[in-house]
């Protein structure tokens, strides 16, 4: 375990060595941003809308007491979405979508000697392949989380309109009640950390792939599993520190 951790840290150090040519790396960062950000927008929109709607209905169901105002459901749904559902569930989904893609892409490059070709040319392969992915991921995951929060709360509103469990006015009142900006800060910190973990862990698994197609698949699976575990661990640590 310590051996792998050491290798991971050394790979990160190599990844952030001075680029051979900044413009080439910048183009890669932009390409990765489109791939990670725009490419994941659809899945993030779908899960956010449904989770927001389901959360609101479930909270309304649990608060079915005449003593509790129904607007509380909107408040609970809002805070749950901002603090936990949007950053963590989005990150877990992104680990599957983006992480597996990173690990399999780099792993395939390794087993087909494309990484060797980069090194022969004098290119710092970890820097060229990994740093743009980490930078793009740390930039785009927070933006996706903000989108997810917006759509999650919208999903809750749609659920109110469709189910009638809470009136939309009560829901909106709850969403606007006692908003604390710290929750968004926590969500963004989580998103940045999760973005780093997904890209770096999956890139590490891909970079040290050896063998053939079978091993590329195994690296991809390992990357996703380790990312998910580390996301949940980091979620706990950040929540404990910041709240």
């Amino acid at each position: 375990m310590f051996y792998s951790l050491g290798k991971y840290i050394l790979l990160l150090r190599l990844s952030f060595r001075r680029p051979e040519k900044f413009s080439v790396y910048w183009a890669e960062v932009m390409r990765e941003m489109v791939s990670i950000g725009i490419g994941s927008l659809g899945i993030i929109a779908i899960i956010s809308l449904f989770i927001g709607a389901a959360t609101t209905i479930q909270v309304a169901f649990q608060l079915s007491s005449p003593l509790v105002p129904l607007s509380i459901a909107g408040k609970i749904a809002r805070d749950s979405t901002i603090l936990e559902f949007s950053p963590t569930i989005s990150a877990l989904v992104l680990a599957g979508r983006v992480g597996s893609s990173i690990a399999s892409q780099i792993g395939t490059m390794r087993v087909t000697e494309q990484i060797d070709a980069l090194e022969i040319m004098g290119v710092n392969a970890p820097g060229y392949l990994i740093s743009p992915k980490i930078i793009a991921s740390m930039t785009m995951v927070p933006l996706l989380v903000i989108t997810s929060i917006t759509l999650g709360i919208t999903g809750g509103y749609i659920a109110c309109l469709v189910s009638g469990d809470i009136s939309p006015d009560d829901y909106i009142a709850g969403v606007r009640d006692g908003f604390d900006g710290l929750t968004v800060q926590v969500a963004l910190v989580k998103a940045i950390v999760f973005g780093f973990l997904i890209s770096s862990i999956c890139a590490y698994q891909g970079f040290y792939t050896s063998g053939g197609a079978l091993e590329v698949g195994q690296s991809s699976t390992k990357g996703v599993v380790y990312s998910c575990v580390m996301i949940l661990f980091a979620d706990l640590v950040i929540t404990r520190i910041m709240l």
Partner: protein
Amino acid sequence: MIEVKNIHKTFGENDVLNGISAAFKKGKNNLIIGGSGSGKTTLLKCIVGLHEPTKGNVFFDSQNFTDMSFEQRVPIRTHIGMLFQNSALFDSMTVEENIMFPLNLFTKQTHAEKLERANFCLERVNLAGKNALYPAELSGGMKKRVGIARAISMQPKYLFVDEPNSGLDPKTSILIDDLINDLTEEYQMTTVIVTHDMNSVMGIGDHIIFLHNGEKWWEGSNKEIAKTDNQELNDFVFASKFMQAAKAKL
């Protein structure tokens, strides 16, 4: 000229290379031949720095490449072109982008100049007009030729070729061999080719070293190879019935 001195390479407890020394000459096709597992590709990877030798040194024009750091190696690496066994073209890039890739990173040329160079290299390997194709759209022989075009895009002093004929039909193999031979003469490169293709050995083997069990067993040219009395080399070179028949006619 490239020199290797007393190269050893060990993986775990497995000694793959045992004290290999050789000099690879400028403007010549230097072939490394040997059976499977003899250490040919490992030696090639030690020379280009993809593997670090356990012991020994590699010299590029008297500069000790083995002792250099990553940064110190970059100027030498920009003079190295390599064709890999499976071509190792970048899947996400077109043919043109593959060839322009090293130019983008290591030159200050304008886009027009880089494009001109890419087109020249493609013409040189008889693939003019194939700029926009992706590697997945190319045949095995075309991939090899694009690999060569990418390798020569920076006008290298040293060309390394790993199994250039693997997976190719005999006609395409000869075409690739001739192309490598012509480019070696034209650019006066030090070309090192790993192969076990006897057509290549007999056709373009200006200087050959034969590896057996990680050791250098024989060194000479294609003209000398038929007359050798080295049993291991004879067994290797004349393993096929075609080669045995050819030897009988000599």
